[in-house]
Every structure is written in C-alpha cells, then in structure tokens.
C-alpha cells in the first residue's frame, strides 16, 4: 500500500511506523509479537526451575533464585503473556468482525499497548536491582512488604509498580473496547448477533473493567506500604511484636480478599477469549453453526457475573468463617454448570458437523480436552473438605495449568487461524500438525505427572524422593513443550516469505466479517460503511450515507430495520467488493481518520522512567529521585502534547448503538472509566471498613485516632467541593448561552475552590503530622497506626484525583478565556462527569473519616 494511501503513516517496513501507529491492526500485531516475547521469557524461567526440580533441593538456582524464577514466571505468563496475546487478536479482529474501521479511541489504544510494553520492560529491569520479586505470583502480604523481603527489595517494588502500569493499560483498553462495541457496530448487528469471539471479548473487558480496578487498589496499597510507609499489611508497628497481629488483625486477610476479588475473574478473563477462539474454529472447521448458540452466550454472561462471587474459595484455609466458606463453595460448584453447557455445545457442534482437522481446529480441540481435565480437577478444590487436603500442593499447580494453558492452547489455534488474514500468507500445514502433536504430548507429560505427585508442596523446591520420577517426567515434558514452540516460530516466520498467498478467505466455512475483506485488510478496513440491514453484509457508499444522514432523523443511529441473520454472518452482497480499491469516503475526499501519533509512546516512556525512579526513592538515591521527577515531567508534558495534537477519529455515520444510542462516544468512555473508578475507590473504602471491622469498629476511633482529628476541616472541604461542582454546571449553562465571561469565571471559580480544598487538606495534614499528645507523642502520620494509614492513603488518593481534575480545569479555563466551548458545552460536561464523581466520593469519605 502506498504511503499516500496510509494517510502519513510510514510503510510497514519502516521501524518508525511501529512507534507512530494507532491503527488497530498494527497495534494487534504489536501485541501479538510482544506477548510471544514474554511467553519465551516466562517459558525460559519455567525451564530453569524445572531443571532445578529434577532433584529435590535448590542446587542449581539457589533458594532465592528459585523463588524469583517461580514468582516471575507466574506473573509473566498470567499478566504479560496470555491476556495481551488474546488482546492482540481482539485488537486485530474485533473491529473487523463488528464492522468498525478502528477502535473508538485509537491513540488510547496505542497508549494501552505502550504502557503494557514498558510495564514489561520495568519487570525485566527489576532483575537487575539486586533481586526481583520472589514472593509468589499471588503477592501475598505481609510476606511481600519490605520488612519481609531480603535486601533492599527494590526489584520487588519495581514489579509491583510494573503491575500498576499494566493495570492502567488494561483499564484504558477496557474503556476503549466497550465504547467501540457499543458505539461502532455495523447497522443491524445486534449485540446478540456479533460473532462469538467478539462477544467473548466484550464479556472479558466487562470483567476486566471491574476486576482490575480491585487489583489496582490492592497494588496501590501495597506500593504505599513499600514506598510511603503506610501499615496496611503490617502486623505491628513498634518493631518488637511482629509475631502478634493485635495491632492490625486484618493485615493478611485484606490482601487475600482484594487480590482474589480480582484473581478469580482473572481466570475467566484469561479463558474467555480462548473460548471465543474455540467457538470460531469449531464453527469454521465443522461447517456448522454453534449448537445452542443462544444458551452458549447466556452461559458466558452468567459466568462473567458469577465470577465476582466465588473469590473466597481461594481462602478456605484462612480464618474466614464457615458460613461464608459454605456460601462460596456453593457459588463455586455452581459456576461449573454454565461451563458444562458450553463444553457440551462445542462437542455437539463437532458431532453435528463435518470436521476438518486443520491445525487451528486441532489446537481448539486439544484445548477443549485439556480444559475438561482442568475443570473437573478444579471442582475438587471448590469443595471445602477436599481443599483442606489439596491446598498448597501440586494438585493446584496441575489443575490451574490445565485450565490456563488450555486457554493458551486455544490461542495458539487462533494464531494459526488468523495468521493468513494478518499476513496474507498460508503457514505450512504439516509443520502445524507436527507442532500440535509435539505440544500436546509435551503438555501432558509436563502437567499430568503433577496430579500423580500431588503431595509435593507448592512453591517449594524440596519434595519426597519417592516423587522424583514424576518430577523428572515433568521436566522432560517441559522441554518437549518448549521445543514444540520452536516449530511454531519457525513455521510462522518462514511462511512470511515462502507461504502461499491467500485470498480474502482461505477457510471454506469462515463466515465472520474479517474474511470478507482482503488479507491483510486495508487501513480503513471496509470499502464503505458496513451494514447488515438486509440480513447480510453490504457496504453503503458516500451517496447513500449522505442520503441517510441528511435531513430530519438523520441521526446516524441505525433504525430498527434489519438485523444480522446468523451470528453476524458475512456473505457479501450488493455493491460490496471483497477487496476494495479505494474506500468510498476517501474517494469522495472526506477528511481522513488519523492513524499516527508519537505521544502514546512518549507518555509511556515517561511513565516507565518515573516508576523506575519511584522504586528506589525510599533509598534517598539522587539517581532514583531524579528519574522519578524527570519521568513524571515527561509524562505530564506528553499528555499535554497529546491533548494539543490534532487527531481525527470520526464516529461512524450510521451504526448500531444499543443500548447507548444517545450517549456519544466521549461521554460513554468517561462513564465507563468512572465505573472502574467506582470500584477502585470502593475497594479502598472496603479496605478501610474491613480493617476497622477486624480491629473492632467502635474501639477504632477511641484507640487509634487523636482528639485533634476533628470534623470541621472535612466539613469545610465538603462545602468547597459542593460549591465547585455547582460552578461546573453553571459553566455549562454559561457555555450554552455563549457567555465567554460566565464560562471563564465559573471554571476559574471551580479551579480556585479545588485549590482551596487542597490547601485546607494540607493545613489539616500538617497539623496532624505534628501533634504531640500522650497517646501520639510523635504526631499522627502515615506510619503511626492502621487508622492513620487508611485515612491518609484514602483521602490522599482522592486528593490526587482532585489534583488531576485541577490540571484539566486550569487548561479548560484558559481555553474558555480564549473563546472555546461557546455554544458547545460537551467538553465541560465530560470534565464535569469526572469532577462530580470526585465530589461524590468525598461525600462518603467525609462521614467515614471525619464523623463516624
């Protein structure tokens, strides 16, 4: 494709393109390649500790080396490989499947990718900071607070910060995908009609939106304990009674609750995209529509909801009470039922169709078999009495690898399935089948002996001599599995040059829309605006779009006309050409969508430097402090640059938008982000409530809070924030009336009140830091006790939100002063959504932290 046709994007052969691109297909490829890099990284670590486990004892890596290898292997595979690998496909395929020309916010999509990449780089750098994280992928606290980490523990802090960066990437991605899927579906494509892979991604991002917010809260609290010196996870504060939990009885359970509230949905976050790939491959290679498609979808929805009500089955061996364990045993056993239905649906699809054993199908079928084994062995762990026996053993290790790696197995199938679409070349089928055979043998030789040797204690390098044969078999299996991946890399790499050219659709019965365009698809995806109004995919040209969108009723929202006939099936009709020459809107000379921006890379680079600096600020090192400061400046500066950059990402003129037809994409994006922020603050407030209940709700105030901590500063701040919210809505009214002075004055007033809020908070904090009473002779600061920690961190997080709001407000005040927003108050409204949310949070923090 020529450079001119790529709207300023350099060609794919140019390195600069990959730093600049915001196009979903390019970003998808970047995700896939990066995730495969982290697969190799995590895989090599696994091979290292499998070598260690040939014999009991740490004679190869040493004890700390072993702990580091095991912990980072888990983190890399769960966070930096599987989900990003799935989101490589999601990026590439979902817009094509739903009829969109890109994601709703292309620069945000690039930002997600670069944050992901740099979070992984930070994880890598942590290996060079003495030692990296060694406390298990579940990061249990207080084990992973600095007091219990050998050495300075800077590498461990870096890993926690890397995960925060990763979580930011995921949250932005979730907002982007949800906005895209609810605002940019082709006309006639109802939510229930979108292809099953896209549907699986939709449910995955819903789970991500809420689950990762809880993880973010957990990570921020852990980071605060690492860097700021709060004591959320410390048993005692005086340094002499570490063996007792009298001062903070909720310490260890708090982490478990926060982590597993995220952690169990994470299992489905990892597995759902794989399930989507399996469903696509089963349909394509049996030539049969998914049997019981409606019930398959309902089951997925049920699992997505129920996934948030099973987390305590990871805590059966902790001190939580028996009634709650029983409830969570029931919900856990219950969640297996919809999975049964999905498994039977896939099996029946196979039975009813004519199977063609291509490589993608073999991987999908293999994944199904592995998942059945993983699922059944998981039910054992969901039963309380059996879990008492199995918890902390290799039964758990074997079970979750059969589940998680079965997901990866399906995703490898997805890689073969979409490889011709992404590259335009066909892979070598024979090598693909050899890869599958080697992979499947290696997998089972690696993980099945772990069931037999289940009495081996998990995370420990010592085990009974009787079990050595099983561990030796597993090590051999691990190397076979690793070697099988080399076959795949070779096959896919060589096929880029030697592979046969494929047309639009190399698979006989593939029916989803990505197969209706060329391989690879053009930059703008489709030759016109896609529609399913007559039951199958066709494309509207500019003339038709203009006719439909002009005049009264030309809202751009699809009417309740036609619907997609069969799961979004794309049999191209009417004027559509499968391989377009020039997009219709381009031929008409319309303004092009932008596809290039360097700012997402710079923002993420700045974030990386800042976080690396933060990992070592507690040492007082000038280097670390400087990096934190410079990185922070680069991040803020780049965000400002991104705001100023002209970037055009047009909404589709005609699209299916239920149930958010009248909520434009910026507004929907903001609301979606706020829903995630609700969970973040909810988890912080929930943590406060939890540790207070653990301590004794009534005693808390008497024992831990000084009399000098009074209501009035909180009340004054409540007045300030309420008034600032009032001024924001007045700014909207003024903008509607095209009163430049009114708009500017109201926004300036909002800014001034926000600054007043922070000053008042600063005065209050300074006073509390320096009180000297009989109970608190050294002041009441972040480290004084668990109550002070919860107060400063929760209100501090809120203060950080206020500060971000003020930066935006200052910019908008300047813009209003120069004449912006007159007659169009939307930007003020979107800012207001955020600002009012910050106000609402304070309406709960005020009573909880100042009155009750």
């Amino acid at each position, binding site marked *: 494709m020529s450079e001119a046709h790529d709207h300023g994007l350099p060609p794919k052969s140019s390195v600069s393109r990959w730093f600049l691109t915001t196009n979903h297909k390019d970003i998808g490829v970047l995700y896939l390649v990066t995730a495969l890099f982290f697969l190799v990284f995590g895989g090599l670590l696994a091979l290292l500790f499998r070598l260690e486990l040939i014999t009991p004892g740490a004679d190869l890596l040493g004890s700390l080396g072993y702990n580091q290898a095991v912990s980072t292997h888990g983190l890399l595979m769960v966070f930096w490989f599987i989900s990003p690998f799935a989101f490589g496909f999601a990026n590439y395929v979902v817009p094509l499947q739903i009829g969109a020309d890109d994601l709703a916010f292309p620069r945000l999509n690039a930002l997600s990718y670069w944050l992901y990449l740099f979070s992984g780089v930070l994880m890598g750098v942590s290996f060079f900071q003495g030692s990296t994280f060694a406390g298990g992928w579940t990061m249990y606290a207080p084990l992973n607070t600095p007091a219990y980490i050998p050495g300075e523990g800077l590498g461990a802090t870096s890993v926690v910060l890397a995960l925060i960066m990763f979580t930011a990437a995921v949250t932005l991605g979730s907002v982007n995908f949800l906005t895209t899927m609810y605002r940019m579906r082709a006309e006639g494509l109802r939510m229930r009609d979108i292809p099953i892979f896209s549907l699986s991604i939709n449910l995955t991002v819903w789970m991500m939106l809420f689950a990762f917010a809880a993880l973010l809260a957990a990570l921020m609290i852990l980071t605060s304990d690492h860097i700021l010196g709060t004591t959320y996870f410390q048993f005692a504060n005086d340094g002499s009674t570490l063996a007792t939990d009298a001062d903070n009885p909720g310490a260890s359970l708090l982490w478990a*609750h926060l982590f597993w509230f995220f952690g169990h949905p994470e299992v489905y976050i990892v597995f759902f995209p794989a399930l989507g790939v399996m469903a696509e491959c089963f349909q394509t290679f049996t030539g049969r529509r998914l049997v019981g498609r409606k019930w398959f979808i309902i089951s997925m929805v049920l699992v997505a909801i129920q996934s948030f009500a099973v987390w305590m089955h990871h805590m059966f061996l902790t001190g939580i009470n028996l009634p709650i364990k029983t409830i969570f045993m029931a919900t856990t056993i219950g969640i297996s039922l919809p999975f049964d239905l999905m498994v039977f649906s896939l099996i029946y699809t196979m039975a009813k169709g004519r199977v063609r054993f291509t490589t993608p199908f073999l991987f999908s079928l293999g994944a199904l078999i592995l998942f059945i084994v993983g699922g059944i062995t998981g039910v054992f762990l969901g039963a309380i009495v059996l879990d008492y026996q199995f918890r902390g053993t290799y039964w758990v290790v074997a079970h979750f690898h059969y589940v998680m790696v079965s997901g990866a197995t399906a995703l490898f199938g997805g890689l073969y399935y979409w490889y011709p679409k992404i590259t335009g070349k066909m892979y070598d089928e024979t090598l693909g089948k050899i890869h599958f055979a080697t992979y499947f043998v290696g997998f089972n030789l690696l993980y099945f002996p772990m069931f037999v040797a289940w009495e081996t204690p998990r995370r420990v390098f010592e085990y009974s001599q009787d079990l050595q044969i099983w561990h030796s078999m597993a090590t051999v299996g691990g190397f076979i599995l690793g070697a099988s991946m080399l076959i795949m890399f070779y096959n896919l790499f060589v096929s880029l040059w030697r592979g046969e050219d494929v047309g639009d659709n190399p698979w006989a019965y593939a029916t989803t829309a990505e197969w209706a365009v060329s391989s690879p698809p053009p930059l703008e995806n489709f030759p016109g605006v896609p529609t399913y109004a007559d039951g199958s995919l066709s494309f509207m040209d500019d003339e038709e779009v203009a006719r439909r969108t002009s005049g009264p009723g030309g809202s751009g929202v699809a009417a309740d006309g036609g619907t997609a006939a069969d799961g979004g099936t794309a049999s191209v009709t009417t004027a559509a050409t499968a391989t377009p020459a020039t997009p219709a809107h381009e031929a008409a000379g319309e303004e092009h969508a932008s596809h290039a921006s360097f700012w997402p890379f710079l923002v993420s680079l700045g974030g990386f430097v800042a976080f690396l600096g933060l990992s070592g600020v507690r040492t007082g090192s000038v280097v670390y402090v400087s990096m934190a400061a410079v990185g922070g400046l680069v991040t803020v500066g780049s965000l400002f640059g991104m705001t100023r950059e002209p970037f055009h990402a047009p909404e589709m003129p005609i699209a299916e938008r239920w149930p958010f037809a009248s909520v434009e994409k910026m507004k929907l994006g903001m609301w979606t982000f706020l829903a995630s922020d609700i969970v973040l603050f*909810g988890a912080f407030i929930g943590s406060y409530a*939890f540790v207070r209940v653990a301590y004794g709700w009534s005693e808390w105030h008497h024992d831990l809070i000084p009399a000098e901590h009074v209501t009035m500063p909180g009340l004054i701040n409540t007045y300030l924030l309420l008034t600032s919210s*009032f001024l924001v809505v007045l700014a909207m009214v003024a903008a509607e009336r095209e009163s430049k002075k009114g708009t500017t004055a109201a926004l300036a007033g909002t800014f001034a009140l926000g600054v007043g809020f922070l000053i008042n908070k600063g005065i209050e904090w300074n006073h509390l830091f320096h009180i000297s009473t009989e109970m608190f002779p050294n002041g009441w600061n972040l480290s004084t006790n668990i109550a002070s920690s919860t107060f400063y961190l929760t209100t501090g997080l809120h203060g950080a939100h206020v500060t971000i709001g003020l930066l935006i407000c200052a910019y908008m005040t300047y813009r209003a002063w120069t004449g912006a927003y007159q007659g169009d108050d939307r930007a003020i409204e979107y800012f207001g959504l955020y600002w009012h949310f910050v106000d609402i949070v304070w309406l709960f923090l005020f009573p909880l932290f100042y*009155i009750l």
Partner: protein
Amino acid sequence: MDWKGYTVIYVVLFVFATAQAVVEFVGIVDSAYWLAFGIIMVLSVVKAVGVAAYYQHLRWEPRAVTYLVLGGTVAALALTAAAAYSIV
C-alpha cells in the same frame, strides 16, 4: 435543567452536608452511634444520588448508563460486605 434548578440542588446538598455535621455536634454520635451512623450514611447516599442524577445528568441519560454505574457500585459493595462478613 436551568441555573435555578441547579441552584436548588446545590442548596439541598449544602443543607444535608451541614445536617451530617450537626448530627455529630449535638452528640448523637456519642449517645446513639448506630442511629447516627444510619442518618449520616442515608444523607450521604441521598446527596450522591442528587449529584449523579442532576449534576451528572443521569436522570436524562438512557437507563443503561445508570446500570453501568450501579454495576461498579454493586461490585464494590459486594466486596466490602462479603469481606467484612467473612471475619465477623
């Protein structure tokens, strides 16, 4: 909504915030803690709903936006309530 409507909401929010502080100043928090807790938290919820409904215009948005917000709220409440109950 015009500026008069927004002003009425602002006055109500201001009065409710003051009422929360008054509950403490008159000693109900000391004499009947859980009654005070109930009054204060209900007032907070009413204020939050007021801001969301009128200042964030949820009242005029499609119900789906409200469900989106409720989804996050229910998730946070479920975590808080179940975690706290687990150690009672």
